[in-house]
């Protein structure tokens, strides 16, 4: 009897102490961390400057603040706000001043180009050391060094020898000192380019081109970038607190050269992992900006806080030309013209996305005369079900069959899942004899299958890094690394390759790229464009100048809050 009681007691005590230990340990840790961030944000709200705090939510932990790291949209947004390159993109996505005070460009006789940048005197890191030309040289070389290689080093391509240094087959591989960049003194940066690439300056606003301070990074060792104390900033904000997987606070950097034009005191990021949670948090006033998935658009479309922002991102179906049916021109064109893209954008996506009959997006680039890229050819292969059915019959006849089964490789998120099902439905209804099997895969696995060309049709997408149509067109070069379809057209290759290297006549280049797109879609129908994506979000009406760039990153430098 006594023994039993004793045992019961022991079990109870151990259970209670286990609970207490857990709550005490982890609990105080996490609440301690967030209390800190609360204080700092409240502190700044009532602080001397009346800038206010912008409350943001994001679905996951911040992956990295190292400019050499994986640049997903979230990391990139944080970097754009805590660091600064030679230039930055402004509210209208135009170049605006950054670390460079001014620059000079000279064309050399061999077609190469030399840029000389003067770094502003008052540019400082948040630890007080000045930002120098050496920081740029170090950062760029570090991004190319195989030991610290950045997944975004491909953006450096225009710089002399950048391609060779990242080619394991080339004799210059890893020889970062051969990169065409030099600091002639502390504040002068000289960059050599192979060609007069018109979009080079814009490239400099990308995090992979940001400066990095050698002395600081060396002093941090393996801890560099892991916690706020392991980071120094040169941008409008600095990383103030970071409670992992819960949130982080970017506070105004008073040492920033243009800090008088930064109104916000802080940006308080919270991790809200679920789309409907984000909306609920907006409703309770916990956050100022909420992303809306399609199912919430109907609820808020009339709200004054509702905004949409079109991205320069186009989704399209890749046709794998190794498939005997898809190798037939008529079959591909029939597939492209036989599903209602306008209806899909309007009733499935609902977030401001527009139907795409093109690869190079709307609202993207214009030529010297101000003529938009889309103006010349407009839309290709508009939806026309009767015409599509005619082409389909013709194709079937040529192939000598009356039924075809095709697989559609697709994404596994709700929105794009719905889209793939819609396409399957339309195709099967409109094209007699066609069966479509959807194969949903997580993104990494999907990419793997695409790379191996182990699919028939693939729901795919592309987004640009710089504002140039060649970004979209080089995907389909016959020997390009992203051509996972066996598509090859000599004329197309010629036009696109010329556009990659020949910048002597920009108007001709523009027309060449328009022609290349026509070949790709109207003539060859190598892809079937589906839609140009947009994001719908709620922005608290008291937040002004919230800048969402077309690659879905944000700039907080110009945000102001009304009381």
């Amino acid at each position: 009897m006594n023994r039993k009681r004793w045992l019961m007691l022991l079990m109870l005590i151990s259970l209670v102490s286990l609970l207490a230990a857990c709550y005490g340990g982890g609990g105080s840790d996490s609440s301690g961390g967030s209390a800190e961030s609360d204080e700092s944000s409240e502190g700044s709200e009532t602080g001397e400057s009346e800038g206010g705090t912008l409350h943001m939510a994001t679905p996951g932990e911040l992956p990295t603040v190292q400019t050499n790291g994986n640049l997903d949209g979230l990391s990139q947004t944080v970097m754009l706000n805590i660091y600064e390159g030679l230039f930055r993109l402004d509210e209208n996505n135009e170049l605006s001043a950054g670390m460079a005070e001014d620059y000079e460009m000279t064309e050399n006789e061999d077609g190469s180009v030399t840029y000389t940048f003067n770094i502003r005197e008052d540019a400082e890191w948040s630890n007080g050391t000045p930002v120098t030309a050496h920081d740029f040289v170090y950062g760029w070389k570090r991004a190319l060094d195989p030991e610290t290689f950045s997944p975004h080093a491909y953006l450096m391509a225009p710089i002399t020898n950048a391609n060779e240094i990242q080619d394991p087959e080339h004799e210059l591989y890893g020889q970062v000192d051969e990169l065409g960049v030099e600091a002639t003194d502390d504040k002068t940066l000289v960059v050599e380019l192979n060609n007069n690439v018109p979009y080079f300056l814009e490239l400099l606003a990308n995090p992979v081109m940001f400066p990095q301070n050698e002395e600081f990074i060396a002093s941090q060792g393996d801890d560099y970038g892991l916690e706020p104390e392991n980071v120094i900033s040169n941008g409008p904000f600095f990383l103030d607190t970071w409670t992992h997987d819960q949130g982080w606070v970017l506070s105004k950097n008073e040492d920033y050269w243009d800090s008088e034009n930064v109104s916000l005191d802080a940006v308080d990021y919270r991790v809200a992992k679920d789309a409907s949670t984000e909306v609920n948090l907006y409703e309770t006033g916990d956050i100022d900006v909420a992303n809306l998935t399609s199912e919430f658009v109907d609820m808020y479309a009339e709200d004054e806080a509702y905004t949409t922002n079109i991205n320069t991102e186009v989704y399209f179906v890749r046709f794998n030309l190794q498939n005997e049916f898809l190798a037939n021109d008529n079959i591909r064109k029939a597939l492209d013209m036989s599903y209602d893209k306008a209806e899909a954008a309007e009733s499935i996506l609902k977030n401001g996305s527009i139907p795409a009959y093109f690869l190079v997006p709307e609202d993207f680039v214009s030529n010297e005369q101000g003529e938009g890229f889309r103006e010349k050819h407009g839309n290709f292969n508009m939806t026309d079900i009767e015409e599509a059915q005619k082409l389909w019959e013709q194709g079937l006849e040529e192939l000598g069959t009356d039924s075809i089964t095709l697989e559609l490789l697709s994404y596994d998120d709700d929105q794009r899942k719905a889209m793939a099902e819609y396409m399957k439905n339309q195709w099967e209804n409109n094209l007699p004899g066609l069966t479509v099997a959807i194969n949903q895969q997580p993104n990494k696995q999907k990419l793997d299958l695409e790379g191996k060309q182990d699919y028939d049709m693939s729901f795919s997408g592309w987004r640009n890094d710089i504002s140039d149509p060649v970004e979209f067109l080089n995907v389909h070069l016959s020997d390009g690394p992203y051509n996972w379809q066996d598509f090859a057209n000599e004329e197309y290759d010629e036009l696109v390759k010329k556009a990659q290297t020949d910048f002597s006549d920009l108007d001709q280049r523009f027309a060449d790229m328009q022609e290349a797109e026509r070949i790709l879609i109207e003539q060859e129908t190598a892809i079937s464009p589906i839609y140009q994506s947009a994001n719908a979000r709620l922005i608290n009406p008291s937040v002004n100048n919230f800048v969402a760039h077309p690659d879905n990153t944000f700039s907080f430098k110009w945000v102001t809050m009304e009381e």
Partner: protein
Amino acid sequence: MTRYILSRLGYMIFTFLLIASLTFFLMQTLPGSPFNDERLSEAQEKILNQRYGLDEPVAMQYFKYLGNVLVGELGVSFQFDGRSVTTIIGERIGVSAILGAQAMGLGLVLGGLLGIIAAVRHNTFMDYTAMIIAVLGLSIPNFVFAGLLQYWVGVRLQWLPVAFWQGFEYSILPTISLAAFVMATIARYMRSEMLDVLGQDYITTAHAKGVDRWKVIRKHGIRNAMIPIITIVGPLTVSLMTGTLVVEQIFSVPGLGEQFVNSILTNDYPVIMGVTLFFSLLFIAVIFVVDILYGIVDPRIRLSGGGRN
């Protein structure tokens, strides 16, 4: 007993190594790679693979990896540049453990009570009510239950925070969401075991001898019904305390469950391996403890294979 424990420890180490090896080779069959971004060319992918030692032969990687595991070195995440796997687990496991323990405690108490009431008042209104609650708890998917709780209690009534993890009040809704399932499971087991026990001859004998009704239930009923409960409580506790995807997601709880799923989706090998090993270690330990507990709860169960001292 000592011999038993020692041999069990041997098996535990063997099981652990087996799991480590199996996970490693299964992971090799995961399609995709951590670095197959849309924008990376093959050459660039090669450089990155080299940087992280993924270009070495699989056998080589395997032995290196086992060696590292044995000294407790779990490597560095690909997804979060430079962050070590032990830090990632350490930052999140505390939160998952608190939430899991709270849910387990609440579920155990409520479920136990419901089960006992249902059994004692068998075939009465109370029994039916208790079982309806239990069936609801089992059959309503927890994303629906959690979503409803969040909307009504958090957004409409504003009694409790909608999400995040900043103190006890933030843990209430996720705890309730998780506890519903535990409560239902325990209640059903408790009821059927109790009914079974209460129908035994010795219970009738005890009643006949005039022992107080509640004393019989307490000393004979509940105690005997505990054995199956212990069997399920152990593993259930571990799975709750190591994180739960849905509830963590809905209430933005910074636990380990969601991180684990993400690491699989992004082919973050070191994190996948580290978390799997951590989970298995916990499971192995808990199963061991459960076996020992059997002997305590029911002295008829002999652990050392019939040896009598």
